[in-house]
């Protein structure tokens, strides 16, 4: 059970400034919830590294190898001479390689996305419904009432329209 202080803002840069202030004041890293991606988050909250590009790369590699092995391997298993061509014909098999490389790249990228963004959400996490429409929310974990009050002060100073407390189960 974690308690959160939520601040609702109408403008994204105000929310961003609040998050920066909170971070510098020693709070746990705040999270921003918004209906659109906010620019400049990385400068304030630190750079994000995503592992997705590794997923894509390995997906493409594995796909390419599988594609060629599938085509050439099955052709050798069932040697079926056609059209005076060799059993392992390179140009057509390169096309199969290419297609499967892209397919696996796509699938692995999706898997990477789910894994790195922690989807699907199994346990309930703090959520601000207004943030899906037209408000920008800053959520920060607060242990007790005192911390909450300090957070509330910072949020109000940054221009929060509304500050409330929310609890996350689990």
């Amino acid at each position, binding site marked *: 059970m974690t308690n959160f202080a939520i601040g609702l*803002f*109408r*403008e*994204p840069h105000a929310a961003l400034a609040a998050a920066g202030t909170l971070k510098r004041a020693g709070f746990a890293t705040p*999270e*921003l*919830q*918004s*209906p*659109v*991606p*906010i620019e400049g*988050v*990385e400068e304030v909250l630190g750079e994000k590294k*995503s592992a*997705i590009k590794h997923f*894509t790369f390995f997906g*493409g590699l594995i796909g390419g190898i599988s594609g060629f092995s*599938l*085509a050439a391997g*099955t*052709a050798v*298993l*069932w040697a*079926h001479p056609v*059209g005076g061509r060799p059993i392992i*014909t390179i140009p*057509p*098999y390169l*096309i*199969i390689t*290419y*297609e*499967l490389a*892209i*397919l696996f*790249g*796509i699938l692995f*990228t*999706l898997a990477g*996305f*789910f894994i*790195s*963004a922690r*989807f*699907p*959400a*199994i346990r309930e*996490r*703090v*959520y*601000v*419904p*207004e*943030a*899906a*429409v*037209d408000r920008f929310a800053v959520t920060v974990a607060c242990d007790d009432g005192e911390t909450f009050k300090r957070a509330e002060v910072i949020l109000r100073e940054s221009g929060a*329209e*509304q500050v409330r407390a929310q609890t996350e189960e689990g």
Partner: protein
Amino acid sequence: MPAESNDLQYADIHRDVVRSIVETGRTYYITLATAAGITLVCFFFPWFYQLYYGIGAAGMNHPGVWGTYLASFIFWIGLSHSGTLLSCVLHLTNSPWRKAIYRSAEAMTLFSLMVAATMVMVHLGRPWFIHWTVPYPNQMELWPNFRSPLLFDVMAVTTYLTGSSLFIYMGTIPDFAAVRDRTTGWRNHMYSLLSLGWRGTDKEWHRLHWAYTFLAVLIIPLAVSVHSIVSWDFAMSIVPALHQTIFAPYFVVGAIYSGTAGIVTVMFVLRKSMNFGQYINASHFDNLGKLLLVLSLLWTYINVVELFTGWYSGTSTEYEALKYKLFGYYALMYWEMILFCAVLPLLCIFKRFRTSFLPMLILSIAINIGMYTERFLIIATSLSRQYLPDAWGLYVPSLVEISILIGSLALFVTMFLLFVKIFPSVSMYEVKETMDTPKAEPAAPPQGSPA
């Protein structure tokens, strides 16, 4: 409802799009019933008749063994090239005008591909064995022939179908979350599942952005390869009018061309039927019109190249096929194709034409009619005039084929109608990105939750 588009707030878009999903009027049900009915009567019943009787129910013969089914297959795959390809390219170039239209365009791609897959099954002589084209280990120890261009087709279309559906799904996750909050009952359950617990945190947006960009980067070469591969069904033969290296660029350009015309049609219908007039406006049509003009000129150039190289080759068979195309039995169709695809789109030079909605609709429909004719002519005229003059023949489509063609269009419309009630057909978060962020009002009461 605010009238001017520059007065729109985030909440207005939100409300409008959610309303388009949740509120259903009688017109919608009537249209859906009509489309589904036409699909059943014009597509499925003739197809069942053909399954019982054999391909003889269609008009194909010897040597015209391919006909409208394959032309429809290529047409629908061509139409599918618009949405996802355009969406990906414009995403990577950060174009703003894509934001309102890309969701429906991608849906168009998805459903075109599904209809194309159905057309393959209609085309086959023994479609109950279509699973033999899939490489799976079996007790017969048989594998498909990976050297065949038709098998490249299977791989490419499957990959494209998977890629497009995952792409549109991934891009819609934030919108599913937004709609989830506004719905109750079974819709709420469905959207909760579909949105996977999206909260809109900065981390999630970051991941989504990168995953989406990588998918876009992967899908662009995929889309180019899919229609090239489809063109190689023809180009890898050694029959005179089909064995041309220009086919791969020809088909890809034709696909993007007919697909863009399809987007114009769909956008017009969405504007009218879903009241999205504020989000899809004249500037979108202006840009689409410019794209159509460029593609039309490119298409005309490629046609001229095809004619020129055919004539310049000096071989009697190639020349004969060309003469037949221009002046033979199907000559009227050929010149209609030239009129609709090469001449009429030149009207897009004028901005006044590009920004008027109804003329653009008529032009887009004409372009698609012309492009269907093109695919049909490629098949019919090439097969009619091959090397041995004794084997020349004539192919005329039968009633069953024409009915299935109309039915496939109705199938597409049915699927699209179901789509607009499940997916938010305009991307809410991207349109919000194009608008100014809501400004804080000094003393006004908070806007509160919109209706």
